[in-house]
């Protein structure tokens, strides 16, 4: 816990340093987006990484968070700060739907059901165009009004995004070593055993998705006020829904800081590809993005943090074991107590940062 707090402090210090010294708007823009998505990915990780609920429905929660404060302000004159809080509350309630799915479904079925949730949110936002602006979305008025979370200076947004990230990560740091955190991991590793030992799957899963929903909603609200332009496409679409999961996986799902690493990598990659390759040939930068994504998921299924965490010998043994046909593997398997940590489950058991 202490180490994690030190890392969090270092990350915050680095972000503040960037805010104070850099005057490269493009770079600050990257950092802000990366921090917002790092918050979102850390939120996803409460359900996806810690509890093993591989949700593809978080785009829906993000959209609830993005639209709630904007619509409440526009139609009911609700103050923005209250709206942001309500956004997190509504996203928490919407997350209960994902929680309900997690109680009955698992694996592919759960992933697809949650994906359908996102698609339904997208369609609702598109079809109720008279309220939500439909496909074209809503543009927020650009005015310097800090009480509405709309700032003139990009650096103010950097502090806002950093605040979002710190709150989310502090919660994650507290949860991961608490009794709840152990129960969540127990459910992820082996639900039947965990339940037989008295872990309440209902209670633990629902708390996990509610925390996940709360912070996803907050991230959505911050995103809306930073981009000042929200559409079903940039908040709820399938691509948005896959984003936090992707970031958490590329960075490493098992710890607290994997999602941060992944969020920075993916955001940088996307922006740099467009800058370097340019938009002269439509599709080329996206092709690189897809190709790199494919490559990294095949080469690094445990994420970057997973790479550093496995001791070299263990890695070598796992690699050899994975190359042998099954019957050799059985002979050279480690003693029973160690058995679970080799082979297919190693991705989640050994990388506990």
């Amino acid at each position, binding site marked *: 816990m202490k180490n994690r707090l030190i890392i969090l402090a270092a990350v915050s210090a680095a972000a503040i340093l960037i805010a104070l010294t850099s005057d490269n708007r493009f770079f600050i823009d990257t950092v802000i987006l990366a921090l917002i998505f790092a918050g979102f990915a850390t939120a996803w990780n409460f359900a996806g990484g810690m509890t093993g609920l591989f949700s593809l429905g978080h785009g829906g929660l993000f959209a609830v968070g993005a639209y709630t404060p904007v619509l409440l302000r526009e139609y009911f004159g609700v103050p923005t700060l209250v709206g942001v809080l309500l956004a997190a509350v509504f996203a928490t309630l919407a997350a209960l739907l994902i929680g309900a799915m997690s109680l009955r479904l698992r694996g592919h079925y759960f992933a697809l059901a949650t994906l359908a949730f996102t698609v339904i949110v997208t*369609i609702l936002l598109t079809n109720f165009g008279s309220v939500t602006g439909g496909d074209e979305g809503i543009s927020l008025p650009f005015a310097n009004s800090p009480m509405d979370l709309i700032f003139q200076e990009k650096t103010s947004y950097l502090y806002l995004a950093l605040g979002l990230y710190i709150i989310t990560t502090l919660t994650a740091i507290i949860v991961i070593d608490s009794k709840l955190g152990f129960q969540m991991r127990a459910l992820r590793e082996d639900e039947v055993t965990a339940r037989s030992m008295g872990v309440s799957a209902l209670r633990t899963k629902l708390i996990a998705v509610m925390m996940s929903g709360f912070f996803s909603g907050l991230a959505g609200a911050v995103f809306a006020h930073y981009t000042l332009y929200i559409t079903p496409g940039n908040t709820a679409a399938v691509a948005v829904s*896959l984003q936090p999961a992707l970031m958490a996986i590329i960075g490493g799902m098992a710890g607290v800081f994997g999602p941060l690493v992944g969020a920075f990598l993916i955001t940088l990659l996307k922006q740099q590809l467009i800058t370097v390759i340019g938009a002269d040939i439509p599709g080329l930068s996206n092709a690189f993005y897809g190709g790199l994504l494919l490559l990294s998921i095949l080469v690094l299924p445990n994420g970057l943090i997973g790479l550093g965490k496995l001791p070299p010998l263990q890695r070598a043994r796992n690699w050899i074991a994975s190359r042998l046909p099954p019957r050799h593997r059985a002979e050279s398997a480690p003693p029973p107590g160690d058995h679970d940590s080799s082979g297919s489950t190693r991705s989640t058991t050994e990388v506990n940062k």
Partner: protein
Amino acid sequence: MLDVIIYGLLAGGVLSLVAVGLTLIFGIMDITNFAHGEFMMLGMLGTATVSISLGVSPYVAVLLVAIAGIVMGVVIHFVIIKQTLGKSLYVQVFATFGLSILLQSIATMIFGTKYIALDDPLASSRVNIFGTDVEAAKLIAFVVGIALVIGIWFWLNKTRQGREIRAVAQDTYAARVVGIRPGRAYVIIFTVGVVFAVIAGGLVVPSQIANAYSGTTFTLISFVIVVLGGFGSVPGALVGGLSIGLVQAFTGVYIGTQWQQASIFVIFVLVLLLRPQGLFGRKSGDSALVGGHE
């Protein structure tokens, strides 16, 4: 009323053809393929382009494109899909999602983002089915689609090779013991899935405009059909495809076309919650949770 049913069934036939590939890839290889609709998109754009540039009928062009689809299926299987066999769900989801972005952007580079429309005298002629006037293209797509789905069902159930493939799906280890090579079954099934999606694309393009982003919708609809029919079930894909066609047609006529998509996803969630194994699927061994073994 009757015309709505006919329109729905005709649309559903092609949907069955796309979904049957996805359901086989899932049922036999245990792979969740998020790039499936992109193969259909490539079939649509490929057929339209070949037909326009060579000046041949789209029904000739689709054969050429299907042959290219075989090559594409085999290559993608060995380069990408083979590496994800037996890996965890998120590796599969993001490998195939990366593949889908890759195929989409390659299609953007080759064909641009413009919609391509195809005009063919045979396809746009009208036929009369039980008093309802429909485009010939839709009837042809329906007949070919259903024929291929029934064909693959016969092949899987009545031939030696088909039985071998089903054996791999049931128990890979036991299949290996009796001398079946699972690797070969995987190549065949993945390629058949790709080619079916490509053909489905070629069959719909005479009556429907297409661009590089047309595939995503079909990926999602195919997943709905696969879940509705039961993962891995060919009759399920057939019945599921026809039902989804009907639901879309009825929603379009009686509620509004903008709700067609929403209706099928609501059905999707309801099916997952009430009968997750689908219409034709078998119940999972783990009674506490559906999909417990994945």
